[in-house]
């Protein structure tokens, strides 16, 4: 019990003393996972829209693949990206292994199926007649998709949150393709594992607190955007 208590005290001190190493680690985590989430939106949302709105042969299989992708184990992704980026691998000449770029690539692969699957559900949930109505009001197909996205903004933002949550917390892939190199590819999750193994519990606790706070703040901002302008018009039924 004392171990936890001392650890917590030291951790709080460490956070407020603005330890430069901890700041670097935190910033890199944010940068890698933020970039990965951002990029995954550009693949995930169009893919989700396509799967939700366009009928084509093999659509069921594509949807099943995306749903499988939502539960992709990060270590498998890490292995896959490592194989491709390995010095002798097909993309070895890019010399990306053990760089933040490699970590972003791996996290995009983890995040985009989550974003695609959830945004597909968001679009499919909209009354198909609303599509007709928007087109009938004179919208181009692109304008229609934009309008539908605005109508589905709540579940779409949930998709973004789920994507970010998936990558900020994962460790298998960033460990494998990043290598946890001090000052270069060390992020919060990999640092927590390492410090715990070395018995530096106070640092591990400090990093964990930061990770939780960070996740909370990002979700707070997204939730604020999501719930903005929503009026509680139905009174709780139990009153």
């Amino acid at each position, binding site marked *: 019990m004392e171990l936890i208590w001392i650890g917590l005290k030291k951790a709080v001190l460490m956070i407020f003393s603005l330890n430069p190493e901890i700041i670097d680690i935190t910033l890199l985590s944010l940068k890698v996972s933020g970039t990965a989430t951002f990029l995954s939106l550009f693949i995930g949302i169009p893919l989700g829209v396509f799967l939700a709105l366009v009928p084509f042969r093999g659509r069921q299989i594509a949807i099943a693949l995306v749903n499988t992708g939502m539960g992709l184990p990060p270590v498998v992704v890490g292995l896959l990206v490592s194989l491709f980026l390995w010095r002798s691998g097909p993309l070895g000449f890019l010399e990306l292994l053990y760089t933040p770029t490699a970590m972003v690539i791996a996290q995009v692969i983890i995040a985009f199926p989550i974003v695609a699957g959830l945004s597909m559900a968001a679009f499919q949930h909209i009354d198909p*007649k609303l599509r*007709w*109505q928007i*087109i*009938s009001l004179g919208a*181009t197909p692109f*304008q229609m998709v934009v*309008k539908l996205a*605005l109508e589905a903004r709540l579940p779409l933002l949930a998709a973004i949150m789920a994507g970010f949550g998936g990558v900020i917390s994962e460790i298998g892939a960033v460990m494998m393709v990043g290598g946890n190199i001090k000052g270069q590819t060390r992020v919060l999750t990999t640092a927590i594992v390492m410090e715990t193994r070395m018995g530096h519990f106070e640092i591990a606790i400090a990093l964990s607190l930061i990770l939780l706070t960070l996740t909370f703040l990002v979700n707070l901002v997204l939730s604020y955007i999501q719930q903005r302008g929503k009026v509680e018009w139905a009174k709780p039924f139990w009153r």
Partner: protein
Amino acid sequence: MGKTILAVKDLKYQLGERFVLNIPNWEVAQGEIYVILGPNGSGKSTFLRLLNFLEFPTQGKIFFQGNLVEGKAQRFSLRRQMSLVFQESLLFNSTVFDNVAYGLKIRGVKPGEVKQRVNKALAWLKIEHLADVPAYLLSGGEAQRVNLARSLVLKPLIFLLDEPLANLDAPSREKFLLESKRLFRQLNLTVVYVTHEREEALFLADHLGILINGYLVQEGKPEEVFNFPASEEVARFVGVETVLEGKVIGEDNGLVKVAVGKGEIEVAAQCQARKVILCLRPEEVVLSAQPNKSSPRNQVKALIKKIIPFGYFHKVFLDAGFPLAAFVTKPALEELNLAEGKEIWASFKATAVHLIERE
């Protein structure tokens, strides 16, 4: 009424083996209110969606002002000159103002003009006070007004409506109907209006088409269609009343005198309109060889045009200076010795006539 603005030729829409629609010829004239009346599942809504290019016919052509509409670009530009209002309001999750402004914004209209035009449209439908209200707080009637405003603000050349009143209660429906018709005329709109309500059709239609099982089984002026159904299925659907268009020529003590065709009919009603539609159920009409001694308000000598068996009764179509129909039982038919081409006395009470104010 003006020239033909929209026409279809050999239009077919098929789902598997089944014809949902099969319309060899159809057109609507500029400024006309064309009502398509039909039971549920007759293909009415599908027809509107085909006209709006939201779906594509299995076969057939659509002409706009005499020109064949072909290709994506033409369909798009024509779609922007029409607007379809659905039975469900399908409002966006934003304020009433933003809902109505949507069509203008995506057309790149400048904000100043958007504001002006939206306010005007809100005023047409008497919902200016709702401009800043979120759409989901509206009642069904208000939502449908917003829905109408959202389409009307675009000043469509052709206005398509798919049972817009189906979800409203009876009093709102009546009010809505009156205001809509005034608005259609005021804006000189060409309207294609789909419904299964006969009263709506009678009130609105310049031209009426009956759609049953995907076939346009009869077309014409509403009173023509209602009085002379082309087939038994039409008769069954449009009801069996005699429907007459007339002009009010006098009113006295709750008794309205209406000029109809070459004759006159007295109706027990209150009436402010000049033009009216009179409905009379055939079972209210009594036929007799001699004038009726109890001297009902309306008594005329009529020529028998046609006699058709109709369930337990025979339906007798008469010309009394205006069309008239009566039901008689088989024994009565034989007793009166009725036959086509013969003359007979027809009488009905002033209270038996149902009056619909039209203009």
